[in-house]
């Protein structure tokens, strides 16, 4: 099957194209070179004047696994109010579901692909819950998926560190766990803090020794960042730092950047880690200082975790932080779990209100960060779905970034004291289409090591989105004209027209199998499960299709 998209403006920053008019050719599931005169495409789409981009990629979105499913259970009222019939696409009418902040699996896939996203990654997969997460990801149609393995509060790792087992043993353990759980990357959540909470510590600072092991969060962070670097994982350590949501935490965040001491690191949802304590309310923006630090540290990348107003639910492995937030739950219910000597989960429903000073400032801080960070290759569009807002707010967020007048109009609607405590009103920057293409396509693919995603060169996966170039950017990004997944047209004029399935991306860095004996003994003695039942086989991924492997290249710290 040969498809021609004729006359579009290609925004393909990975290949240096910023709106040039060119035809794009797809053969079956891949982008292909122009086959030259004489070739007869099976289908031609006239996309003259339209904006053509690769499918968008969300690098941080809680779409699958135990905490998401618990959040669905907790958000019963929302699900009752938002119920959907399946789409009558293809031969079957399937994909009915419910929910906005915690959509069911088919609804998740449908909402993403309708906006032109062809991949989304679950950023907090616990090893003990990985099989569940993979079962859910297999049930999300249309988009590619993958999971980041949560480490750094697991008793096994803390014991390795506390007993000075050495970096090589840590590396082998990390590699074994990534392999056993079919993960794409490593995430650390409140390093050591979730573990400390199990010993009844309610707070743990970056340089505070945790209970029982006497290991500091700084050590956990650096040991894991080094393991990820030395194993040669494409994605740097994905860091959810200490003290999330606490006024004054920007100091911790700046210290965390220093702790990395040159090792690559991705700091996630930094909006929640950018709070200062100036002003009467002891709550102010630390965005400028943080943006400055990120701008001058080329080994760092960040995503924002933008807050948008309305009802949502926060779901996190960070039980320590969630316990602080629980009294603010709206509606007034929440849940917390300690999980399998690994980590935990906390789920707290939340309503961000534009007439709340704190929420308004959170909104402004996120936008400040977007606009003050100067390299779109190192900053990613996220709402930390659903924690800052459901991912369906992305088109609105893009309009806020691309349209200053719109932004100022929204700023004027907020709590009256908020504008005085943010520099947002004075920032003139507007994102260009090329920058949006970097931030939502080229850069996410690059930082995750997905060589054939996020761009439109021959050989790339034929994941393509075509938009009308509307001045109303929200309308433009809400409703693409065409979306292709693996070469198949699945969305036309914002509506689903066919079914498709994505794949699951993983890494497998290799390890010295001596570590397996130690892990096996731990599983027998502590976890009460032979490790063969923990390990997830390839045949379990995507109904037997197996995972998509991405290479790792071992490195040494200079």
């Amino acid at each position: 099957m040969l498809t021609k998209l004729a006359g579009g403006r290609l925004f393909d920053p990975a290949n240096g194209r910023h709106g040039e008019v060119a035809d794009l050719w797809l053969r079956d599931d891949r982008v292909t070179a122009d086959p030259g005169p004489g070739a007869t495409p099976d289908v031609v789409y006239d996309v003259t004047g339209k904006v053509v981009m690769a499918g968008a990629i969300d690098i941080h979105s809680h779409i699958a696994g135990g905490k998401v499913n618990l959040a669905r259970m907790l958000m019963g009222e929302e699900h009752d109010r938002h119920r959907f019939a399946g789409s009558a696409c293809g031969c079957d009418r399937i994909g009915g579901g419910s929910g906005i902040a915690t959509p069911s699996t088919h609804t998740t896939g449908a909402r993403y692909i309708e906006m032109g996203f062809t991949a989304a990654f679950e950023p907090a997969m616990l090893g003990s819950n990985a099989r569940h997460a993979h079962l859910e990801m297999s049930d999300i149609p249309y988009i590619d998926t993958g999971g980041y393995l949560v480490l750094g509060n697991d008793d096994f790792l803390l014991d390795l560190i506390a007993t000075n087992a050495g970096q090589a043993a840590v590396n082998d353990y990390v590699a074994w766990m990534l392999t056993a759980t079919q993960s794409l990357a490593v995430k650390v959540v409140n390093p050591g803090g979730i573990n400390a909470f199990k010993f009844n510590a309610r707070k743990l600072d970056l340089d505070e020794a945790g209970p029982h092991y006497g290991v500091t969060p700084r050590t956990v962070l650096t040991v894991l960042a080094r393991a990820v670097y030395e194993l040669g994982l494409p994605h740097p350590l994905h860091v959810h730092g200490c003290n999330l949501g606490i006024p004054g935490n920007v100091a911790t965040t700046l210290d965390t950047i220093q702790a990395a001491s040159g090792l690559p690191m991705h700091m996630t949802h930094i909006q929640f880690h950018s709070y200062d304590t100036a002003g009467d309310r002891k709550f102010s923006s630390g965005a400028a200082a943080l943006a400055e630090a990120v701008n001058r540290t080329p080994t760092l990348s960040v995503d924002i975790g933008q807050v948008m107003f309305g009802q949502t639910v926060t779901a996190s492995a960070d039980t320590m932080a969630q316990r602080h937030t629980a009294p603010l739950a709206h509606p007034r219910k929440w849940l917390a779990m300690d999980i399998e000597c690994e980590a935990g989960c906390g789920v707290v429903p939340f309503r961000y209100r534009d007439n709340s000073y704190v929420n308004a400032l959170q909104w402004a801080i996120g936008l400040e960060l977007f606009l003050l960070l100067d390299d779109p290759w190192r900053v990613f569009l996220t709402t930390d779905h659903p924690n800052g807002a459901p991912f369906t707010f992305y088109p609105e967020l893009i309009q806020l970034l691309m349209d200053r007048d719109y932004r100022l109009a929204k700023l004027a609607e907020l709590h009256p004291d908020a504008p005085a405590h943010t520099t947002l009103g004075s920032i003139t920057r507007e994102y260009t289409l090329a920058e949006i293409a970097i931030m939502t396509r080229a850069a996410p693919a690059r930082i995750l090591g997905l060589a054939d995603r996020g761009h439109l060169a021959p050989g790339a996966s034929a994941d393509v989105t075509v938009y009308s170039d509307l001045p109303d950017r929200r309308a433009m990004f809400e409703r693409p004209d065409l979306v292709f997944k693996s070469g198949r047209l699945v969305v036309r004029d914002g509506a689903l027209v066919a079914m498709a399935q994505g794949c699951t991306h993983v890494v497998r860095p290799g390890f010295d199998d001596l570590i397996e004996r130690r892990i096996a003994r731990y599983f027998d003695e502590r976890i009460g499960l032979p490790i063969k039942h923990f390990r997830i086989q390839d045949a379990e991924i995507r109904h037997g299709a197996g995972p998509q492997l991405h290479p790792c290249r071992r490195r040494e710290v200079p």
Partner: protein
Amino acid sequence: MTFHPDILCPFCGLGCGDIGIDQDDSGIAPRPSGCPQADRLFRRSATVPTDARMGGTAVSMDDAVAEAARLLANSHAPLIAGLATDVDGVLSALTLAERIGATVDHERSDALFRNLAVLRRFGWSTTTLAELRNRSDLVLVVGPDPAAAFPRLWERWVVPEPAFMPDGARSVVFLGGEPMPETAQLLGGQIETVDPGAADLATLVAGLRTALAGRAATGDPMTGLAARLRAARYAVVVWAAGLFQGPQPDMVVEGLVRLIRTVDGTTRCAGLPLSGADNVIGANQASGWRTGFPLRTGFDGGVPTHDPERFDWRRRLQDADVTLWISAFRPEMPEFSTNGAVIMLAPPEMAMTPEPALFIPVGTPGIDHAGDVFRADSVVALHAGMLIDRGLPSVAGVIGRILAALNQTATVKETAGC
């Protein structure tokens, strides 16, 4: 004779992964595991009848599938229940339910909904089995001994010393229930029983909460227990709501969650609600991610609707004109009466009277085919492997064929597009 070590047990929900199975030409048999359920349910003959039956007469699988599709397509009020199958089986049942507008429920969902009702209106604070084993210095068992439903709970998760307690000591206190003799034997001197009179569970829990608030009368036996909860480093409150007697069991659960929250405010305390046999947790999880709702959800015009009262299978059985009953784990039926036609998907060993309109034999996940099941603490999903090929299809396989027959307009099979 072949020996299979470390086989995963899919039955009660504890997910024991250490069952030894002997296999020879006559079939499979477990080595004694200390669990009456595993010892009974892993015993299967190699040769079993694999024919489907229509009105008691053997028919081909093709004919059985066609008849099932005909019955379901013509149904005005279909019910898919039992739902005792692996995750794939549940997902295929949900696809079928959406296709024909059926409601779904699991045979054993009563216990689950006693906990879920509280989760959905109030939330909860819970823990998992490995945390119980390694962290708890005080286990408070509320109500009847959960070992009645989860036979190896104490042996595997409480007998081993807690690794993270300085002196490895652990107490087990029973409130409103007696330890079974096996439990007493295993835990011996660790066990204490608090039973101040013949009060019902709700009253006992309320009494303990009063004591925790410091408002108990002088000499109230709950005062001591409250003090011990406050003094424990990591207390775990264990209950099996399915075993609760008496009215409003969910109010007992809510009282427990509130109690846990109080203690957890100053020291650590978490609940461990157990409900899990025959993958009821997996069925609920799959329903949650596919529909956004727990079990007891139906599809009217393809739109999911949840109703924990109306869509209880016992109630729906009264007005269902066709019931697809799925029982892949064990050849046993609950009390069952309906005026509608019954399509039964069950192991060939299932004996039932009256004979259903249609019987389609299926294999058991973890015996006849691989399949995923969830553990009773709801976090861990486990992949049970295949032990023996007796020519029995999986539930997902049979429902897949029924769906294909319903969609005579050929369905394009999707494959992952990597």
